């Protein structure tokens, strides 16, 4: 496929925003359940939620550039029964509203305790956070399923696509949370950096699995099935036109195999190798600078990762557009 930068920015930005919220909420749940004894401050929650919301809004803005008729975008909420894209369009504002509310409750000090179960005090933000977590995971699933549900795009048609959207979004958000912690509450660094490393390893395993899977794929459609002629040697002599068309522009990245391989190597280094090294070093010697570099490297790496994800999708319609004349 031809990667669209609007969609690359949309998926990476909202992924990071969702991951950042999950990081904040994980910290809160761990403290409530007494797994860790350091509570994040309300300032930390407020800043974290605000950054998460900004990322989600930026993603939404990027998505508008993908539409031919953005003024009609509201119509996209109508077909949620069948379309994952429609479901994403509905869940995204719900998640944004819940995360905003979560941040507001912390910022305004409305965080009243609602009830007490045993020794555990359930605060208002914990309930809102739970709802927001459900929304965030639904959003991850909807985003991943937009691609995973297209069965003839064999590279995407796999549960690994959804898993990778969840893991890569989460790890970038947790890394960003580590950076924010380094600014505002350095005692939280070990918690977030530790989680980031765990997620990074998981994401590496599952992204690697998808790379290996896709390398071994054999296309189900061939020129024989495409035109229905049973002969082993079929060559296209003309695609029917000598100029360009949507078919020749939208479905192929137009880059060399070497370029593709380079992008893959770049994202493996920038998403996994560099942040892993820097996160481990931040565990030993916390530094805002190091974590800023780790976050930046991861985000830029994720842009390359997403570009590669789209470029790797091999659309069967390309079989019909192999030779100009």
């Amino acid at each position, binding site marked *: *496929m031809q990667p669209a930068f609007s969609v690359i920015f949309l998926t990476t930005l909202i992924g990071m925003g969702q991951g950042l919220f999950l990081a904040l909420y994980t910290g809160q749940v761990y403290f409530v359940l007494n797994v860790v004894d350091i509570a994040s401050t309300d300032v930390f929650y407020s800043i974290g939620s605000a950054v998460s919301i900004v990322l989600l809004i930026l993603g939404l803005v990027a998505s508008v550039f*993908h*539409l*031919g*008729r*953005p003024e*009609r*975008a509201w*119509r*996209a*909420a*109508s*077909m949620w029964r*069948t*379309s*994952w*894209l*429609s479901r994403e*369009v509905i869940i995204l504002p719900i998640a944004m509203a819940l995360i905003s509310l979560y941040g507001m409750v912390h910022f305004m000090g409305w965080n009243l305790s609602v009830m007490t179960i045993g020794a555990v005090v359930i605060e208002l933000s914990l309930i809102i956070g739970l709802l927001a977590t459900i929304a965030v995971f639904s959003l991850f699933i909807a985003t991943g399923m*937009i691609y995973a*549900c*297209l*069965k*003839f*795009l064999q590279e995407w048609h796999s549960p690994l696509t959804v898993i990778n959207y969840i893991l890569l979004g989460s790890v970038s958000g947790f890394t960003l949370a580590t950076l924010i912690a380094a600014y505002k509450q350095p005692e939280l660094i070990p918690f977030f950096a530790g989680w980031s490393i765990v997620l990074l390893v998981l994401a590496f395993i599952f992204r690697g699995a998808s790379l290996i899977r896709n390398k071994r794929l054999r296309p*189900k*459609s061939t*020129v024989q*099935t*495409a*035109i*229905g*002629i049973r*002969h082993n*040697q*079929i*060559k*296209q*002599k*003309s*695609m*029917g*036109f*000598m*100029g*360009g*068309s*949507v*078919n020749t522009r*939208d*479905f192929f990245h137009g880059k060399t195999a070497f370029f593709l391989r380079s992008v893959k190597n770049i994202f493996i280094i920038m998403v996994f190798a560099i942040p892993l090294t820097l996160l481990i070093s931040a565990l030993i010697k916390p530094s805002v600078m190091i974590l800023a570099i780790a976050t930046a490297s991861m985000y830029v790496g994720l842009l390359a990762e997403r570009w590669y994800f789209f470029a790797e999708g091999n*659309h*069967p*319609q*390309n079989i*019909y*557009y192999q030779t100009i004349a």
Partner: protein
Amino acid sequence: MTQLALVIDLNVCVGCHACVTNCKEWNTSGSAGALSDDNPYGKDPTGTFFNRVQTYEVGQFPKTETVHFPKSCLHCEDPPCVPVCPTGASYKRKEDGIVLVDYDKCIGCRYCSWACPYGAREIDEHQKVMKKCTLCVDRIYDENLPEAERQPACVLACPTTARIFGDVHDPDSVVSVAIRELGGYQLMPEWGTKPSNHYLPRRKNHVSYKKDELERVDNPLKKEDYQVDASEPSLDDVTSW
């Protein structure tokens, strides 16, 4: 239930592109507005087309055959492009099975074109909405036209009758008979889209004779015309030429 569709006979298509030009002409002149055409005579011409004729070479020289292959929307019975549409702009008509796009609802997100394995959908770069073959829905029901002309533009243009139009769910229609009797098939059956348009394969008709069918064995006198009455003298017997 009706399912209108085209049956395309690869045995007689000569690759003249008349269907392509007539399709373009009809669909760029309709009430939905022009079909994009940028730099038609310039360096990088580009535009939106609903129908194309491609050419394939089958076999290895000198034992090759040239196959001209027209391709347009196949109006699938289970169209993968319809359920993915977030706005409902993309739909399949219940009454005749034509897959259409409501140009007033489409937001131009291109998701349906990703979801079509055949590459049948093209975005109009000027109107910014997705467009595709309508099976000339604005022709085939037009009662102002003579009945013989209520057919898709591509069908009317074809000089060799390589394109037949009709209801593939009616077993007695000309398209159904052609599919049944001439080995009609669907494209990319592996994705379960059940295209309504069918293609008829190349056919060569050979008549095979056995030797005894040409030369009679039950003719001991080796006379071909055994019906001649031997009791009467023949012309050869009574005259000397």
